[in-house]
């Protein structure tokens, strides 16, 4: 046949016909060395490669099963022999841990089962789980399973005779975790290197700023006149940061778990592995950390639970819980003030329906107190007293008042009921403990009448509010009642003292703020009502006495600073679109912040004094959060505090002097800085001007000789020209 166009194709052998093309050669060239390991190519298949010793890992031995005689099966009958029944029961139990590939029921000389059985699972992990779950399982009154891995026998038989105690690990010196509280004497070197030193010679509070939408975390010291940066790290946390309650640690959240940092250089102290952690909570004395991860349950991995309690100092996992509906509110585990107990609400399935219980656990064992939960049908909420191990909880009313609602105070661990109070016509209830634990205020929403609507919802008519104040320190815990007609927007106890403030809404736009003083024996006395305030939140200073009336959210961030000793308004100002208000632990300064989580522009925080004067305005790109570092309780006794207050004048003079020195030092530095800048810049400008002058002839050339260098030079003059025009000609004839 005639040659075709593709005669250039490889190996064209025209003998065999036009369409035949020889196959390309697939074999490797002769000196080819395979440099890709087999694992990379076939890794997943290789994992299933049968191992030599692997077989034994999946075998478990179950001991303690009943001994049953092996009977002959009666021909023609459907009834199972006793042995078969036993086998079915046990197999059903063990099938749930994995696929059983092999089983062996050894039988002794008398034709009875020896009392133990061997099971083999497909995978060693399944065997391990079966051991963990069923070891100690009670089959019936007389038979308890004892389950082990087959390999365990060998391991325990071969324990060496000489036992070496584990070597003591060197104590990791974490440094001084409380460095941030220390006072150093004002040595000459301290002044010069105050910015680089990590200690706090002048007792400034520290605060942490999370900015750049979480990408950057910075810790500052609130020094005057400008804050000093102590530490800044990018991507220190993946989600958010939190200080521990006494300020010792900074916790950061990551995809794999939680890390704690602290000490002078903020080194990593501990790590807790809990994949997918979303929320954390510290116990009040910083002994324990609770983490919550919604992911753990859904992955179905046994052994990782949603809520885990860790011990902070050792990093050990103490106890874990699976999440149920009670974890809808965080914190799910609530601690007593001294870290001795923690409790949670649970809905437990019982034979005759679900029952709400309060489960109280004690530390350090993390076991259920008295091995029994507190069964309280219908309990809605509970809270610990901040100063004693007392729980208060409440049960709503049943059937519109058939059984009244009840608030109960319970002492732990004795479970002795200190006080109960029945309340009628209750819609809802909120409990507020005062920080010193002396009073408990219960806010009750009450109705006059209740109507049941067509679609089974209940409509309440005539809603009013009551405050029940429990006086914990008096004998028999007397309760005082107080009624309020208006709708209550906010409630806040004074942290130190016996006052509380409420915001009532009189009309849509204006709210009243009322201050009450709590005395035992009578209902709370109204101290003062401030009317027509744009306020929907209350922030007391942690030392008491001062309060900020804040209008957040729809009121766009207006603030009034009130001194509650005489109810004068010390200052009023606003921070547009403010989302957070944070007092520092000493009560001297306040932050108002616009968080990026709430508002996408204008993020930053302002620093105010407690009197309402703005000290600083910081604009920080995409700032998420600013938190003061908490301080532990003061070590001074009451007498010492009184002494200091008496001699305040003497100390005051000292501090004033210090402040003056600091201010003058700052301005001197500033001026020096400025002088340097001016010098550098004028040098540069002189160079430019030289160059410009040299270029002048060229410029004139380009512009046809018109000098454009200054306004008045050549040609910039305006000439005035007067032109007369005849507008109108009028002829008037005068007689």
């Amino acid at each position, binding site marked *: 046949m005639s040659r075709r166009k593709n005669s250039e194709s490889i190996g064209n052998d025209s003998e065999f016909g036009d369409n035949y093309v020889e196959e390309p050669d697939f074999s490797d060239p002769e000196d080819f060395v395979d440099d890709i390991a087999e694992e990379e190519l076939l890794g997943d298949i290789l994992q299933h490669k049968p191992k030599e010793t692997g077989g034994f890992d999946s075998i478990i031995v179950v001991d303690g099963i009943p001994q049953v005689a092996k009977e002959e099966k009666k021909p023609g009958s459907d009834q199972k022999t006793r042995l078969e029944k036993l086998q079915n029961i046990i197999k059903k139990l063990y099938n749930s841990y994995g696929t059983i590939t092999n089983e062996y029921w050894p039988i002794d000389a008398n034709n009875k089962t020896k009392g133990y059985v061997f099971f083999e699972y497909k995978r060693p992990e399944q065997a391990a789980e079966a051991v963990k779950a069923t070891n100690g399982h009670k089959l019936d009154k007389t038979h308890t399973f004892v389950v082990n891995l087959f390999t365990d026998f060998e391991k325990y038989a071969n324990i060496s005779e000489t036992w070496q105690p584990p070597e003591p690990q060197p104590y990791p010196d974490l440094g001084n975790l409380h460095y941030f509280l220390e006072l150093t004497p004002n040595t000459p070197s301290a002044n010069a290197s105050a910015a680089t030193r990590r200690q706090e010679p002048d007792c400034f509070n520290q605060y942490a700023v999370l900015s750049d939408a979480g990408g950057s975390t910075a810790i500052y010291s609130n020094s005057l006149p400008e804050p000093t940066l102590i530490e800044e790290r990018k991507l220190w946390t993946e989600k958010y940061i939190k200080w521990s309650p006494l300020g010792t640690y900074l916790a950061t959240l990551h995809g794999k778990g939680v890390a704690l940092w602290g000490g002078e250089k903020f080194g990593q102290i501990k790590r807790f592995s809990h994949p997918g952690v979303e929320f954390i909570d510290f116990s009040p004395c910083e002994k324990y950390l609770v983490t919550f991860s919604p992911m753990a349950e859904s992955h179905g991995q046994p052994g990782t639970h949603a809520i885990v309690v860790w011990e902070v100092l050792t990093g050990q996992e103490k106890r874990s819980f699976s999440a149920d509906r009670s974890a809808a509110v965080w914190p799910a585990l609530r601690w007593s003030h001294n870290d001795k107990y923690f409790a949670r609400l649970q809905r437990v399935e019982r034979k005759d329906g679900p029952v709400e219980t309060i489960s109280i656990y004690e530390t350090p064992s993390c076991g259920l107190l008295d091995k029994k939960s507190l069964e309280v049908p219908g309990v809605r909420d509970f809270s610990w007293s901040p100063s004693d191990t007392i729980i208060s909880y409440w049960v709503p009313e049943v059937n519109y008042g058939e059984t009244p609602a009840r608030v109960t105070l319970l002492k732990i661990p004795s479970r002795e009921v200190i006080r109960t109070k029945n309340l009628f016509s209750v819609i809802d209830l909120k409990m507020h403990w005062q920080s010193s634990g002396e009073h408990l205020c219960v806010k009750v929403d009450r109705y006059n009448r209740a109507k049941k609507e067509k679609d089974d919802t209940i409509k309440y008519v005539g809603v009013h509010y009551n405050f029940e104040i429990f006086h914990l320190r008096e004998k028999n815990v007397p309760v005082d009642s107080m009624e309020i007609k208006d709708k209550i927007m906010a409630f806040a106890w004074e942290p130190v003292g016996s006052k509380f403030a409420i915001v009532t809404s009189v009309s849509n736009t204006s709210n009243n703020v009322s201050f009450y003083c709590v005395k035992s024996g009578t209902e709370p006395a109204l101290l003062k009502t401030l009317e027509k305030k744009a306020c929907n939140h209350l922030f007391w200073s942690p030392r008491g006495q001062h309060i900020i009336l804040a209008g957040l959210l729809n009121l766009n961030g207006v603030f009034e600073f009130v001194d509650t000793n005489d109810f004068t308004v010390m200052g009023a100002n606003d921070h547009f679109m403010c989302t957070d208000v944070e007092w520092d632990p000493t009560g001297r300064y306040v932050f108002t912040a616009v968080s990026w989580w709430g508002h996408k522009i204008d993020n930053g925080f302002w620093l105010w004094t407690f009197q309402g004067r703005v000290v600083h305005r910081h604009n920080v790109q995409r700032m998420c959060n600013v938190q003061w570092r908490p301080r532990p309780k003061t070590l001074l006794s009451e007498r010492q505090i009184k002494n200091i207050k008496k001699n305040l004048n003497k100390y005051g003079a000292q501090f004033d002097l210090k402040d003056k020195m600091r201010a003058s030092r700052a301005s001197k530095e500033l001026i020096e800085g400025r002088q340097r800048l001016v010098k550098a810049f004028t040098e540069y400008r002189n160079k430019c001007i030289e160059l410009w002058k040299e*270029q002048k002839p060229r410029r004139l050339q380009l512009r046809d000789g018109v000098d454009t260098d200054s306004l008045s030079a050549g040609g910039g003059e305006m000439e005035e020209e007067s032109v007369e025009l005849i507008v109108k000609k009028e002829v008037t004839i005068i007689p």
Partner: protein
Amino acid sequence: MIAYTTDKAMGNPCEIFVVDSRTADGLNAADPIVKIPITNGPKVTSMLWGPLDEYLVTGHESGEVVQWDLRSGKTEGKKTIMTHEHSNKINDMQLNQDGTMFITASKDHTAKLFDMATLEPMKTFKTERPVNSASISPIKDHIVLGGGQDAMDVTTTSSRQGKFEARFYHLIFEEEFARVKGHFGPINSLMFHPDGKSFASGGEDGYIRLQEFDPAYFEFRFDY
């Protein structure tokens, strides 16, 4: 000579043209003195002539500032220097009085002062809003910045009237020392009068404001 740029639209890339305005033919876009296409790069948002008509400086949508040499080729301009100091679009660039420095106003909330010949950034002025325009005073070491939200975000900012301000910064110390209120929409363009005694500003609200300085402005001094 006139230099102008075209926008990236209708399939045409962004291009820089330099044409001769002295003849009628010269204005025809088909026969420019220099034509620089910017095919793969970010589009040009602002342009300035160099001091002796030797080069052009352009600011781009990505925040880059590029210097183009016009003397080299006939129709091609050569990119001589490029810097990328801003992280977002450059809204405006303005020269100072002698053409040796220029200031760029960018959407990344800052304005920067550059040297004309080397494109070296010398000063940075920080604000919290996108800066739409900046101008250098001819007689004092001051600059003025004007900005505000993007037009579409205006309704979400403070509802107080006249909150949009022209802000004055000291050129060397980068510190703000004065604000002039008046506009109730973002300020889009600003410029000092060539004699330095007043300035003009135009805004999104449709108003042009001419503001003369009172004696206190001229007497104001920073301590140093």
